[in-house]
């Protein structure tokens, strides 16, 4: 074994564990605001992901222990679970997770080789294939006044016989859906936003979820697990694009803060766009990647056929990564810069 003979104490497992840990505040707030249903979704996705990971590793002739213990499959599972509707049926969760792990991850070569963010591939497949089932969101406790118990949530998720009224009492359109539907019905943004689902900045309850993801992001940044560039550029892309549209026609386009304080944007900024494997690697590339994803998110939300644009924006930017990286190579020590200028001397 040649030099170096000492190693920093970091590991892939440690990196992934920090990501999971940083998601915990978000999950706690989720349970507190929307009921414990998410815990079932998370568990089911985790079990499915680990089983799929193990099966694929075995099929591909890879050792199980190092790759299962790297926790990357669980990160994918959690990110997908947090993106899915709270009360999505079990088969939706399983299908999405299987697609993420089997197709997006392992068929592309496994850990470190996937071009696309596995969780977003899973989400995209589901929203394209099962748009109706992807709407079963629990409303915030603050508005519904009641939430399903763990047992009731399990009943809903696993297709048990739940009275329609019980379900209707706890499910609601998300703020994003409400805005979308309202705009389609020719209401102005101001009129739509008088609905109780809209809170101070984002959606009622939803904005708190977003803040909790921000906290997780700050934890990751303080541990240097993620670079500041991607999230900042993404948030800037969202803010500027939404702000430009809102400034241009406030009646037809939602305000930038509404998008900015959406949980999907926060989750994407700190946990999804920052996925190292499928993201850009150069410092300037991270800025381009983040900004592009933010811009596309708003464009797809505004003019696309689906309620949210994060997944498609990320996948499109994933596609552009080789180009972004090649175009944003930094100047090396002692090398000339892009304009051919010699190093400082």
């Amino acid at each position, binding site marked *: 074994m040649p030099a170096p003979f000492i*190693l920093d104490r970091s590991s892939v497992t440690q990196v992934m564990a920090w990501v999971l840990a940083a998601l915990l505040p978000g999950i706690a707030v989720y349970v507190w605001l929307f009921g414990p249903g998410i815990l079932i979704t998370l568990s089911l996705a985790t079990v499915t992901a680990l089983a799929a990971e193990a099966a694929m590793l075995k099929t591909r002739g890879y050792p199980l222990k190092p790759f299962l213990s790297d926790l990357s499959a669980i990160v994918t599972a959690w990110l997908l679970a947090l993106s899915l509707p709270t009360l999505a049926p079990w088969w939706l969760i399983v299908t999405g997770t299987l697609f993420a792990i089997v197709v997006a991850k392992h068929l592309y070569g496994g850990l470190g080789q996937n071009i696309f963010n596995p969780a977003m591939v899973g989400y995209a497949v589901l929203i394209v294939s099962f748009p109706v089932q992807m709407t079963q969101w629990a409303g915030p406790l603050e508005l519904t006044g009641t939430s399903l118990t763990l047992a009731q949530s399990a009943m809903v998720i696993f297709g048990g016989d739940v009275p329609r009224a019980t379900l209707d009492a706890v499910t609601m359109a998300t703020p994003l859906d409400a805005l979308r539907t309202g705009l389609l019905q020719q209401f102005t943004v101001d009129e739509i936003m008088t609905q109780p689902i809209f809170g101070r900045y984002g959606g009622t309850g939803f904005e708190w979820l977003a803040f909790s993801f921000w906290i997780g992001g700050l934890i990751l940044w303080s541990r240097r697990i993620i670079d500041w560039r991607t999230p900042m550029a993404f948030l800037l892309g969202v803010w500027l694009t939404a702000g430009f549209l809102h400034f241009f026609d406030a009646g037809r386009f939602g305000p930038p803060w509404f998008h900015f304080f959406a949980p999907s944007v926060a989750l994407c900024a700190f946990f999804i766009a920052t996925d190292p494997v499928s993201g850009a690697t150069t410092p300037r590339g991270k800025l381009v990647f983040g900004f592009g994803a933010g811009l596309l998110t708003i464009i797809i939300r505004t003019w696309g056929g689906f309620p949210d644009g994060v997944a498609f924006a990320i996948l499109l930017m994933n596609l552009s990564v080789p180009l972004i990286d090649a175009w944003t190579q930094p100047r090396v020590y*002692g090398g000339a810069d892009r304009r051919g200028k010699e190093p400082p001397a």
Partner: protein
Amino acid sequence: MTRELHTFKGGVHPPEHKAESNSRPIHVAPLPRKLVLPLRQHLGNPAKPVVGVGDRVLKGQMIGEANGYISTAVHASSSGIVSAIGPAVVPHISGLPDDCITIETDGRDEWIAHGPLDYQAMEPADLRMKLRDLGLAGLGGAVFPSAVKLDPGASHVCPTLIINGGECEPWITCDDVLMRHHADEIVQGVAIMRHLLGSTEILIGIEDNKPEAIAAMQAAAARMDFAVEVVVVPAIYPGGGAKQMIQTLTGKEVPSGKLSTDIGIQVFNVGTTYALARAVHHGEPLISRLVTVSGHVLRPQNFEVLIGTPMQTLVTLAGDRDGTTGVLMGGPMMGIPMPDLEVPVVKATNCILVKSAELFPAPPKALPCIRCTRCADACPAKLQPQELYRFARAADFGRAQEYHLFDCIECGCCSYVCPSHIPLVDFYRYAKSEIWAREKDKRAADLARERHEFRQFRQEREKKEKAEKLAAKAQAKRAELAVAPAEGTGAQSDADAKKALIAAALARAQAKKAEAAPKNTDNLSPDTQREIEEIEARRAKIRELARKPLESEEKP
């Protein structure tokens, strides 16, 4: 006086482990029975032996002379008898043997006549030749011949002289200890360098984890009659690398593929500076140096060691322990594993680091790269190690070069921080060596192709010339025959003409054949002629013998 310091990008903070060895006094290692002195201890051409087996040599006597400009001499570290000249195992990463001169010491340690040099009165070129003959080479690790570095070149002056006391590698403390105990001599060496290079700005960079060395050097610098600035720099690996030290102290970068002298800066290690002072003020060649012995030993410390001393001697002196898993020359970040402990201490040996499973656990199995770019954050050369790794793995060496593979200084920061525990530096070394090998092959192939193409061109040309010549001749012949009045009918004269042409062609072919016959047998001496005749006679006899049985078979 405080100086505005600059920072370089990247770097890491591995545990320093300096305290283990830097508090004990310098211990002079005893004279070994046998000294093994490799002829290649420096960069450039190996020295040429100037002694023979059986010769008695004195301490400080030149036993290998510098061979060419980038080379330096090798000296006997003690008196004794030359017992062997030939390949022996040397401390090199390849583990391959190299030419060495082995001396059986006689224990008398008898010096050759030597004395100080009046360097200020000497021509700079003469002084440099003298230093080359005294075997000076950089002791920081690269062992570049110092005489070459002390030549300011065409500009006749190198404005900035940096003395590198960074010593950023963990465990190593030989420079620290040298500065603590020999600060005055180091500064005397600086005076000589200043004289040769005409430098006006002299900076001594020392990392802030060596307060005693800093104090000693500041005191010594204050005693000099010219300005020497001792600059305290933050401890970060690889802050003691020449390029990084230049950047920290001056904010300048050495342009890619160029030397620091191109931007008016020269850098020397403190050990080299000390050796220079010893050489000039005492006439001592480079026959000893300070070596840190640390790691898994009972008494980690620094030794003053004669070059050529087997490493085992030092490890034994420092107290070897059970559970040793190997020995490195150098530090844990850039050191090289030793094939065995019989290898000698050479000019490049700054540290002998004894490994154990606790101090240097085996690295975990490597996982795939997750492109987290921690390596890029740590890289002081501002490279994109994750991309270089990808290209090296895919054997895409062209792209690796496009991404500045050759600006990699192999400091090991990327491997150190990699959460997937990928031995990244290995991949870069592999890619570099592949590129070198391919360039060599390509040069050979290009030469072969050029030769082949020229041969084809020549053959083509000759063929064409021949055809033209033949055509011209045929034309002339025909004209000749046509002019001569034909006696017979037209048809007959035509046939005659053809016959004549054929006859002429045959004659030419004959002449050519005669011409093409080997000419080796022309102009032979009578002796050779006789020899050939004898050989011919023998061959005739053999032919005769070979024919006989056939004849006998024919006539039963």
